């Protein structure tokens, strides 16, 4: 039996050759770390990465499949010295050796640091790390939203601390995948749900819970890789845009993530986040009672002050009133005294005036002329008959004289009379 391809009549196909070569290479080389310089990194729409790893004399084609890329925190830059973990094989389509990479570490501080710094710088440029953006947490939240994994210990810690401090607080958990592939997207989706909920844009099956006053987002401790989703720019931006104040709680005290930098408050652990989020119910009750006391005391003091003020004013008022009355009485006494003094003089002046007026009235009286020898004719009805027209032949009238009366009868009426001599025109 000959080996396939040993003779021309037994030639193998190219595919057979490359597949055979692949099997041999994969069998001969375990997964191993290779160091070199990154060159020509290309990311295809499919999500796979392709680049060349090279040194002074050699190069090897490298591939990172999409489902491995999430383990690599940052895209290596051109010329970067890295160590890549991968499997040597054959790329059949090109007939090339290929190194399938599943992890990359930069030398020195590493790719994690690089990505962290890059994201941080991008957020800083966008103004999202400005301390002035930090919102004050509500002092007395009624509903706390929690974005974390439903499987982690963090959720249990948060729930039990919230319950212990304030059994009346409502908790709404928005589940998210917090590590591994798709974690940033899952956290982003949870934040988007919170946003729709708070803005009232969500449609609910059943009654909608009361909108949250504050958000706790985080997870328990883990490796740098486990916590990495909280360094993702997508997550950071969603936290920054969160419509309610945010508390981040990622890992332990020493782990600081980008999410921590963006959140309004960073809590060292999930338990601390819960403590920060709500006050102890009994403390709040005490505060309310104290405020009631301050109010009552304040009012009582105010009333006492008012009463003293009132008394003082009443006293001042009565003193003033007494003074006013005394002054008036003195003035009245003066006026009376002056009147009494001047009374005879005044009475005499009035009398003189009276006499003067009486004289004048006398002179004007028609009866006064009788005394001077004139007579007045008066009808039987008592009306003075001063003109010719009042008389007709036979009119009976009285003629009043200064010492009596003559009843007379008109004989005839004439227009001429001695005292009207000038009246010849008639």
């Amino acid at each position, binding site marked *: 039996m000959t080996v396939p391809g040993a003779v021309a009549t037994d030639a193998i196909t190219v595919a057979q050759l490359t597949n055979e070569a692949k099997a041999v290479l994969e069998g001969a080389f375990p997964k191993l770390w290779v160091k070199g310089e990154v060159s020509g990194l290309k990311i295809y729409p499919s999500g796979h990465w392709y680049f060349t790893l090279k040194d002074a004399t050699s190069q090897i084609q490298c591939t990172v499949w999409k489902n491995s890329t999430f383990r690599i925190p940052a895209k290596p830059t051109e010329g970067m010295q890295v160590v890549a973990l991968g499997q040597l094989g054959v790329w059949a389509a090109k007939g090339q050796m290929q190194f399938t990479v599943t992890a990359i570490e930069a030398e020195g501080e590493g790719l994690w640091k690089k990505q962290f710094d890059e994201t941080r710088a991008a957020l800083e440029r966008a103004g999202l790390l400005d301390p002035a953006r930090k919102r004050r947490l*509500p*002092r*007395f*939240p*009624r509903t706390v*939203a929690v974005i974390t994994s*439903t499987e982690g210990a963090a959720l249990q810690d948060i*729930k039990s601390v919230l*319950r212990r401090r*304030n*059994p*009346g*607080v*409502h*908790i*709404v*958990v*928005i*589940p998210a995948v917090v590590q591994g592939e798709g974690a940033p997207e899952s956290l982003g989706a949870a934040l988007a*749900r919170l946003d*729709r*909920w708070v803005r009232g844009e*969500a*449609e*609910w*099956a*059943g*009654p*909608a*819970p009361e909108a949250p*006053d504050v958000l706790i987002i985080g997870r328990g401790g883990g490796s740098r890789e486990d916590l990495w989703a909280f360094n993702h720019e997508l997550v950071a931006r969603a936290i920054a845009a969160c419509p309610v104040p945010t508390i981040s709680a990622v890992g332990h005290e020493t782990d600081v993530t980008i999410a921590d930098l963006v959140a309004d408050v960073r809590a060292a652990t999930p338990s601390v986040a819960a403590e920060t989020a709500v006050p102890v*119910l009994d403390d*709040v*009750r005490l*505060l*309310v009672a104290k*405020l*009631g006391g*301050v*109010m*009552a*005391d*304040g*009012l009582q*003091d*105010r*009333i006492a*002050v*008012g009463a003293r003020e009132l008394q003082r004013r009443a006293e001042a008022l009565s003193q003033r009133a007494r003074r006013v009355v005394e002054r008036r009485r003195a003035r009245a006494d003066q006026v009376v005294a002056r009147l009494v003094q001047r009374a005879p003089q005044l009475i005499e002046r009035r009398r003189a005036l009276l006499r003067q007026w009486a004289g004048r009235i006398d002179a004007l009286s028609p009866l006064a002329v009788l005394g001077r020898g004139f007579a007045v004719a008066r009808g039987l009805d008592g009306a003075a008959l001063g003109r010719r027209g009042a008389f007709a032949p036979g009119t009976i009238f009285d003629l009043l004289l200064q010492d009596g009366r003559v009843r007379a009868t008109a004989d005839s009426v004439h227009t001429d009379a001695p005292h009207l001599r000038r009246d010849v025109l008639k």
Partner: protein
Amino acid sequence: MTFEQTLARLEEIAAALDRDDLPLEQALTLFEEGIVRLREATAALSDAEGKVKTLLEQAGGVFEAKE
């Protein structure tokens, strides 16, 4: 008014009543309001048990708060 606003108002009223220069008439009005707010705040601090719910998004984007 949220509990937070109620409490803030209560603190404002208490601070105002603590001053001596407030006209008595105004002090009485504030005190009356304070009593109402105090009742509201106390009622909000009842022993009612808070609920724990999980927010889920069903197919079609409809939200559900499951206990």
